């Protein structure tokens, strides 16, 4: 990376090295519906970036564009660029499989596979070609510890993941995501289907994961964004209204619409 950035000059090099995602003039359409408009966002390494906004503002669409999951919808068209570690993810020769191996995702509803806890965690490493049982055992333990659920499930790794509670299932999904040792973790409203205690556990977990991963989290819960994130982006009608340090957004927002939203006047 140093070699690539040198030619861009020293000032930019300092910034560039810590930027994970650089979104440039991103537009996205579902058929005729213009869902994302001219998005410009820079997301930094080892930070938690929260994306907030009312329903239908494009926040989930945006996060799903970051690992190109949005392309599962057949009518999607995009323009602009998203540079992930300085490489445009829309490049024809950038395989989605490669991108998604570096950028893990945790979904809104816990979605474990109907397999054992062990097989859930080992799924990612296995599809990427790891067959050695010892290595897999180590990955499973490390990932489950990383997701703070090892103590709860270590004695029943062979039971079906569906037998766990919703909150545990979501942490299994986080562990499954950690098992591919990603660089970035995308979280699409990861606590919206969970009870308050499970939510708290996931939030604490996010704080710990921040040491090693860059986390981008979509949430409709503004208190959650205020509690856990370093930066916050406020989306409205497919546009980024404001993007700044979380404490700035929540104390002295520049835009009236941001203030209205966070003070609960709409949304």
């Amino acid at each position, binding site marked *: 990376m140093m070699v690539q950035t040198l030619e861009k000059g020293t000032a930019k090099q300092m910034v560039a090295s810590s930027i994970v995602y650089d979104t440039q003039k991103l537009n996205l359409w579902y058929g005729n519906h213009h869902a994302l408009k001219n998005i410009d966002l820079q997301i930094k390494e080892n930070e938690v970036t929260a994306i907030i906004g009312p329903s239908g503002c494009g926040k989930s669409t945006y996060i799903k564009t970051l*690992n190109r*999951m949005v392309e*599962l919808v*057949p009518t999607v068209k995009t323009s602009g660029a998203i540079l992930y570690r300085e490489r445009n993810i829309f490049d024809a020769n950038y395989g*989605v*499989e*490669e*991108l*998604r*191996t570096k950028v*893990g*995702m945790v*979904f809104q*509803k816990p*979605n*474990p*596979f*109907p*397999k054992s806890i062990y097989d859930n965690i080992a*799924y*990612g490493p296995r*599809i*990427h070609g790891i067959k050695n049982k010892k290595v897999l055992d180590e990955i499973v333990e490390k990932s489950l510890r990383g997701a703070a659920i090892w103590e709860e499930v270590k004695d029943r790794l062979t039971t079906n993941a569906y037998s766990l509670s919703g909150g545990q299932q979501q942490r299994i*999904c986080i562990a*499954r*995501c950690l098992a*591919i040792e990603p660089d970035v973790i995308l979280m699409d409203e990861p606590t919206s289907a969970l009870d308050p205690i499970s939510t708290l556990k996931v939030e604490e977990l996010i704080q710990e994961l921040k040491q090693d991963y860059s986390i981008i989290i979509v949430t409709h819960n503004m208190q959650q964004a205020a509690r856990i994130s370093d930066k916050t982006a406020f989306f409205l009608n497919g546009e980024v209204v404001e993007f700044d340090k979380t404490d700035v957004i929540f104390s002295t927002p520049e835009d009236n619409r941001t203030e209205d939203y966070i003070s609960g006047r709409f949304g």
Partner: protein
Amino acid sequence: MRYVNHEAVVKKMNKRLIVNGIFKAIFLAATLFALLVLGVLFYRIISQGVGYLTPEFFQNFGSRVPEKAGIKAALVGSIWLMCVVAPVSIILGVGTAIYLEEYATKNKLNNFIRMNISNLAGVPSVVFGLLGLTIFVRALALGNSVLAAGFTMSLLILPVIIVGSQEAIRAVPQDVREASYGMGATKWQTIINIVLPSAIPGIITGAILALSRAVGETAPLVVIGIPVIVHFLPDNLLSQFTALPMQIYDWAKRPQEAFQYVSSAGILVLMIFLLLMNSVAIFIRNKFQKRY
């Protein structure tokens, strides 16, 4: 003003409960009618046929003498037929279903194909017999062999297997597919590791039901020209053979009364054959469901 008059509701309650009771009785009667018909059918067949179900019945070939007539050739022929139909129809059917559900984009052409596969399931079996006669028996010169009949039967049940497999694949929740794609799995890895394990109980149930239809189907065999009295067992895929429904059909249309009983015995064998196939389906389904 209140819109719901509770006194009137209580007054009318009796009438509503009576109507409820009447409909329950009608639906129960409909169910009992079907059961009754089935019961009569079983009674007739068992009472007539069970006397002929002797070990000799399974060891003898067809004969003009009712007492000497046996089902050996037809039973073995039907097993041979299934050995062709099962792999051909399941491989083609499940493959098509996977392509249509997982790979094909949702455009007009593919929707047209999907719609026509469903329509194909409603085409009368005799039409498939004519198709088999034209293509497999004559054009490919396979004759009235196990292979020609097997291909014809495969075509006949293919739409049923495709539609059944499509439904089973569609029933796999989208969110587990997303989870798999989200970790960088390719489409095929997602299909083989996530989609198929969940869909296989449904696919197998549909396939076995379709195969049961193929075992009992007569019209295509008649059109292809499968013989009814065969005094040898098929020894390769191009052998001539006969099958259970052909044999039963032949016995049933003979003038001697005793052949009616032989025919009933043949039907019993066919039904036991079908029940065995269905139990295999249930066994496989339960085994897979336990694992996932």
